[in-house]
């Protein structure tokens, strides 16, 4: 064993209840309080597509998981140390996420015969000894909340709604956390409803007091270990909000008027909501009549000298593909975000998957190459959007950014960048009529000029019919089509020359096994590789942020390792790309369950691979 230190103590807490119980608010506020205590953390909401499924049903259970503790928390955790189950259905559907010996907190009031039956329990699991492997903390949360809020005079309905704040108060007692930020949040959120503020704050305080009075403790789970976060300014951020702020940064850095044009679809709509909340600052939002209108309006925006942005999930990206081909053909900048969800067809709209990679890479008729980027973490969405805009405007090309339902919804602390140090984006609009032709090219980038309508003496026509190299006039000339096809491919290939730098993210920089990932699998692969490295294996992790064109030095990195594995939430789409581009025997580790990889799953798969190797190669250099 090599004596690397493992990660510091960490705690995983999972809240589960009816989708109307306010589980996501409870989780979000808990995460904020935990972050303020200087813990590193990562959260994962896990909710159904149904807005208000029948109360007590198993398919209506909404959950929120958070891992927190010392530095380097990269996943929401494989297993929960503590599970809050607010009704029998939540217990039933979430018990397998709890580790043996873990703590279960239940609201006994919700374990009524009716709810037990709805959840499919013949006998009350709180009474039949079936939970003996766990530490059960039973309390009448509904009654205790009602008593706590009674002095504020609110009705039964509001008293019921305050249960999540009572539970938050208890959680802050169990794990240590300040109630003040939550109280502030309640006061501002419900500022027009003083009785709601009073009842929620009363519930919060009562939950905290209950834990204190009953001297409850979460045992080993209540660690209270602080992260060694270095000095800096942080905020807790989801992938959706980081992406929205990234687009705001693009507007500020480029001076371009951004139009975000989209059609409502889970899980991409949250980005539309975030950008709409900016109220016209830097970005115009447009809710189009369908996915095709959304992308074509975005293309129109870029044509007219703004920057068009559109987003969707897989079903929407499928609809946008013809227009993407148009953007490739007329060579206009465009940002297209795909917040991937489990497919095919409607699939599982709230669950993550990475199975749209082939669609992003190849989903257009004709030879229509375009760059594809993928953020690895929620906070990374910020810089990836800036990079996408830089590529789009530098090379006059649409760019696809692949996020997923996990990155979009997960939250983590983010050390805020120095806005003065962000790279400028300098769109070069053509204004000089001398020698102007719409399809002449920059010798370095091969980009065509961006000549926006309204510019004197540059009137010209563009379109989807093949354009003559230079003049852009309609051309059926065979040699011209060959040349234009080659030029479009070469232009995208050149993106790699100035593209994102890639090096080993962690572990061995050369040796037996290179594990390649992309997108939201980052944390799980990091932790798996870190575990294997501590166990003495020669394993490195490389995470691709730029999937097309592949990083210029990828071949050199691959050559430093004896074996290559690719872990991804599909059936091996990146693995096939790596195989076809480099003729290496890349092994595939895949999962399409609608859930993020567990660290243990990847680690076990990698161990199997490593065990199957003839014998460990000695490290090179």
């Amino acid at each position: 064993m090599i004596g690397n230190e493992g990660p510091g103590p960490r705690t995983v807490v999972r809240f589960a209840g009816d989708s109307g119980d306010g589980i996501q608010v409870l989780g979000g506020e808990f995460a904020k309080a935990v972050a303020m205590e200087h813990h590193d953390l990562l959260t994962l909401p896990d909710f159904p597509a149904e807005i208000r499924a029948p109360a007590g049903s198993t398919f209506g259970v909404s959950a929120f998981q958070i891992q927190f503790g010392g530095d380097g928390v990269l996943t929401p955790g494989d297993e929960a140390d503590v599970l809050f189950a607010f009704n029998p259905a939540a217990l039933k559907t979430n018990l397998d996420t709890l580790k043996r010996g873990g703590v279960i907190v239940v609201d006994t009031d919700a374990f009524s015969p009716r709810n037990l039956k709805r959840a499919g329990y013949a006998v009350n699991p709180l009474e039949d000894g079936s939970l003996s492997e766990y530490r059960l903390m039973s309390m009448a949360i509904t009654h205790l909340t009602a008593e706590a809020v009674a002095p504020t005079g609110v009705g039964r309905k509001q008293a019921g709604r305050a249960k999540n704040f009572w539970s938050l108060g208890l959680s802050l007692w169990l794990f240590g956390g300040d109630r003040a930020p939550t109280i502030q949040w309640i006061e501002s959120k419900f500022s027009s409803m003083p009785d709601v503020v009073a009842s929620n704050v009363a519930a919060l305080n009562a939950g905290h007091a209950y834990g204190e009075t009953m001297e409850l403790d979460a045992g080993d789970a209540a660690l209270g270990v602080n992260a060694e976060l270095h000095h800096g300014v942080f905020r807790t951020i989801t992938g959706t909000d980081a992406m929205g702020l990234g687009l705001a940064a693009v507007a500020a850095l480029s001076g371009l008027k951004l139009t975000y044009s989209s059609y409502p679809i889970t899980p991409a709509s949250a980005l539309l909501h975030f950008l709409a909340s900016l109220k016209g600052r830097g970005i115009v939002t447009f809710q189009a009549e369908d996915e095709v209108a959304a992308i074509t309006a975005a293309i129109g925006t870029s044509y007219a000298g703004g920057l068009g942005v559109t987003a969707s999930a897989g079903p929407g990206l499928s609809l946008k593909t013809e227009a993407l081909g148009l953007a490739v053909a007329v060579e206009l900048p465009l940002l297209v975000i795909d917040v991937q969800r489990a497919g095919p067809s409607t699939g599982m709209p709230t669950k993550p998957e990475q199975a749209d990679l082939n669609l992003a890479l190849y989903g257009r008729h004709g030879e229509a190459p375009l760059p594809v980027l993928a953020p690895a973490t929620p906070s990374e969405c910020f810089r990836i959007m800036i990079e996408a805009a830089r590529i789009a405007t530098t090379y006059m090309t649409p760019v696809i950014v692949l996020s997923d339902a996990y990155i979009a919804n997960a939250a983590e602390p983010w050390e805020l960048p120095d806005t003065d140090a962000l790279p400028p984006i300098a769109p070069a609009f053509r204004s000089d009529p001398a020698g102007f032709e719409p399809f002449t090219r920059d010798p370095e980038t091969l980009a065509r000029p961006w000549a926006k309508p309204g510019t004197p003496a540059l009137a010209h026509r563009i379109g989807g019919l093949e354009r003559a190299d230079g003049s852009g006039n309609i051309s059926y000339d065979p040699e011209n089509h060959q040349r234009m096809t080659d030029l479009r491919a070469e232009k995208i290939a050149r993106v790699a020359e100035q593209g994102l730098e890639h090096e080993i993210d962690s572990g061995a920089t050369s040796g037996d096994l290179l594990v390649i990932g992309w997108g939201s699998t980052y944390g799980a692969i990091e932790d798996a590789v870190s575990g294997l490295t501590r166990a003495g294996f020669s394993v490195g992790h490389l995470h691709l942020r730029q999937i097309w064109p592949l990083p210029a030095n990828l071949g050199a990195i691959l050559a430093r390792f004896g074996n290559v594995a690719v872990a991804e939430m599909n059936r091996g789409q990146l693995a096939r790309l790596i195989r076809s581009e480099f003729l290496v025997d890349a092994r595939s580790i895949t999962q399409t369950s609608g859930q993020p990889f567990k660290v243990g799953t990847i680690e076990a798969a990698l161990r199997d691979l490593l065990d199957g190797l003839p014998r460990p190669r000695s490290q090179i250099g």
Partner: protein
Amino acid sequence: MNQVIKLTPKDFETDQEVRWCPGCGDYAILKSMRKTLSEVGRNPDDVVVVSGIGCAARLPYYLETYGFHSIHGRAPSLATGIKLANPELDVWVVGGDGDFLAIGGNHLTHILRRNVDVNLILFNNAVYGLTKGQFSPTSIPGTRSPSTPDGSVDPPVNPATLALGGNGSFVARTADTLQDHLPEVLLRAHAFVGAAFVEVLQNCIVYNDNAFGDLTSKRHRAENTVIVRHGEPMLFGADNDRGLIYEPVRGEFRVTGNASEASLHDETNWALAAALARVNDPDLPTPLGVFYCAPREDFVSAREDLIPYTPLSPGDLKDLLYTDSWRA
């Protein structure tokens, strides 16, 4: 951007060879558009002509303005994006009946209800030309075509009725060969702030020749059409000696031989406009002209009034980022 400059139709010719079939009605529409553009006084550099796919959609290549020949049916949404980026541009959207009413029917209704400030020119020849003669959404039932050798069954859509039903605020109809009336309607459409929808009955000489011959030929025109103008009596006939009387209860018309009895056209009356648009009676002349014109705030202006776009400064960005932040 709004300076008036002296231009002639010739200033709008490009160096591209026009590739429509000889005798196609599109030539006449192109001619009228060049004439209109030379008269409206906008700088050609501020004019954008957007199209989808089809014979009509080739038009941008033949106009010396900015032009975008896009994909089938989507020109209205592309134009919406252009206006969102730069509301100052003078945007024209051209397309055929397949483009506007079949594959792009959705976008047409939405640009109309939003009232985006563009001019939508429908070249209605009631047939698919570029794909070689299939029946279209405006073809009359019984149309024999390569895809309907025994005649089509589908009842047609009436473009002007659809536009009115879609909450269009400017709806007009004219025809390709009416070189006096077509530019008049185009000028009206251009002057209208909002989505101006103009249906142009257009002859396809190859696949649907003479489909509107009874309306547009010199011989029949006076008898078979009535040109309506706001505030004027609805008269027709070689000597304008007959007129239409509007029966508002049923939304129908009857012919009178006494011109002084004819009803006056009121283009702000939606019910009258709808009645005119749907006239389909061998005993009545087919109405042409501006059926409906009811100005209301255009989409981009209404948005700007509610949520004005403001560029984001680096300072604003910093404020935005550092919301809800804490120092470790």
